[in-house]
C-alpha cells in the first residue's frame, strides 16, 4: 500500500535541495517561534476591553464638543444631559453650525457687514442661512422618519468670555429660523 502511494508521489528533480531549504526554513521558524513566546494575550484582552469601552462612550455622545483655547466652556451644576439637536458653537474666533464654519468672530463681535441693517442689528445673515438650512434638513427628516421630531431646540455651545450682546444676537437669529428653545452647554461640576 505504502509502496503504491510512493509511486504516485511527485518527486521533483532538485528534491534534495528542497529538503535542505525546508530544513533551513524550519530552523528559522523555530527561532521566530521563540521570539513570539512573549505572551500578548493579556495585553490583547486589556486592549479589546478598552476598545469596546471607548467605542461605546463615543457612540453615546449626542453632541461632539472639543474644548480648546478658542472654546473654553463655562461651568455649571446642572444635571441635564445633552440631546441630539442642531448645535451652534460660538468660539472666540468663529461661529459654527453643526460642525460647519459659518462666519468669523473678532473680539466677541460679528462684523457689521454680516448683519442685516448694520452694526446695531441683531440679525446675523450667514448664521440665519445655515440655521434655516439645518431646520429644513430636520423637517425633511421628520417627513420620512416619524421618530425624528423637529421641536425647535438647538444647543448653544459658547465660550465663557463671549459678551451678552453676541449671545442675544445668536439667539435672535436662531429665533428667526424657528429655533425658540435653547440648551446651553457647560462643563458639569457635578460628579
Amino acid at each position, binding site marked *: 500500500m505504502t509502496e503504491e502511494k510512493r509511486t504516485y508521489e511527485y518527486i521533483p528533480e532538485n528534491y534534495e535541495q528542497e529538503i535542505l531549504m525546508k530544513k533551513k526554513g524550519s530552523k528559522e521558524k523555530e527561532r521566530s517561534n521563540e521570539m513570539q513566546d512573549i505572551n500578548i494575550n493579556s495585553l490583547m484582552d486589556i486592549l479589546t476591553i478598552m476598545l469596546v469601552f471607548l467605542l461605546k462612550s463615543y457612540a453615546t455622545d449626542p453632541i461632539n464638543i472639543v474644548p480648546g483655547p478658542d472654546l473654553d466652556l463655562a461651568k455649571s*451644576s446642572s444635571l441635564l444631559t445633552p440631546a441630539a439637536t442642531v448645535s451652534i458653537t460660538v468660539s472666540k474666533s468663529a461661529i459654527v453650525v453643526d460642525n460647519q464654519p459659518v462666519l468669523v468672530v473678532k473680539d466677541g463681535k460679528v462684523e457689521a457687514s454680516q448683519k442685516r441693517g448694520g452694526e446695531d442689528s441683531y440679525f446675523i445673515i450667514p448664521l440665519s442661512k445655515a440655521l434655516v438650512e439645518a431646520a429644513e434638513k430636520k423637517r425633511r427628516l421628520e417627513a420620512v422618519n416619524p421618530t425624528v421630531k423637529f421641536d425647535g431646540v438647538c444647543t448653544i455651545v459658547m465660550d465663557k468670555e463671549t459678551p451678552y450682546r453676541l449671545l442675544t444676537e445668536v439667539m435672535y437669529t436662531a429665533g428667526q429660523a424657528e429655533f425658540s*428653545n435653547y440648551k446651553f452647554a457647560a462643563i*458639569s461640576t457635578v460628579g
Partner: protein
Amino acid sequence: MARKKRASTIMEEINMRPAMNLILILIPLLLTSMESAKIAVINVATPQIGPSSVATPPTDTPEDKPLKLTVALTDRGITVFAREQVIENKDDPLGPTILKKDGEEEDASGKKVNAKVYDLEKLVEIIQDIKDANPAEENIIITAEPNIKFKYIMEIMDATRETKVGEKLKKLFPNVVLSAGIA
C-alpha cells in the same frame, strides 16, 4: 513530546499582528476624540411674543400682578425686579439691588486675581425669600448689559436654579428666560 510542541506552535501561529495594529491605532484615536469633561446643559427659552392666553384684567394692587422675577446684570452689580418693581438696596436706593463685592476670579489664563465679583450669596438670599412668598412660581427672566460675559450669566442661572438647604436641594426658579440686553 515533539508532537505536542509542534501542536502548540501551530496554535500560536494565528497572526495577531494586524489585529494589534488596528487596535493600537484605534485606541489613541478614540482617546483623543473623547471629551475629557462631562457636558451638562441648561434649558433656556426666549420671551414669547403674542397675546397671552389668559386675559388678565388690570388691577391696582401690586399683589395681583404677575411676579415676573427679573435679574439684570450690570457692571456695578445685580438688580432684581419683582412685580415690575425694583427691589431696592437700602444703602443705595438708586444703585443696583446687590452691589459687586471684593473677591477672586479667574482671568483669561486661569490665574486667580482679585476682582469685584457678583455677590451670589446675597442674590440667593433674596431669591429664596421671593420663592417662599411665591412657591408656585418657577420662571425667571435674566438679562444683562451687552458687555457682560457669558460665564456670569451661567453663574446666575446656577445660583437661581436651586440652593442647598441643609442637606436637601431646594428648587428655586429653574425655568430660565433670557431677555434682550439692557442698553
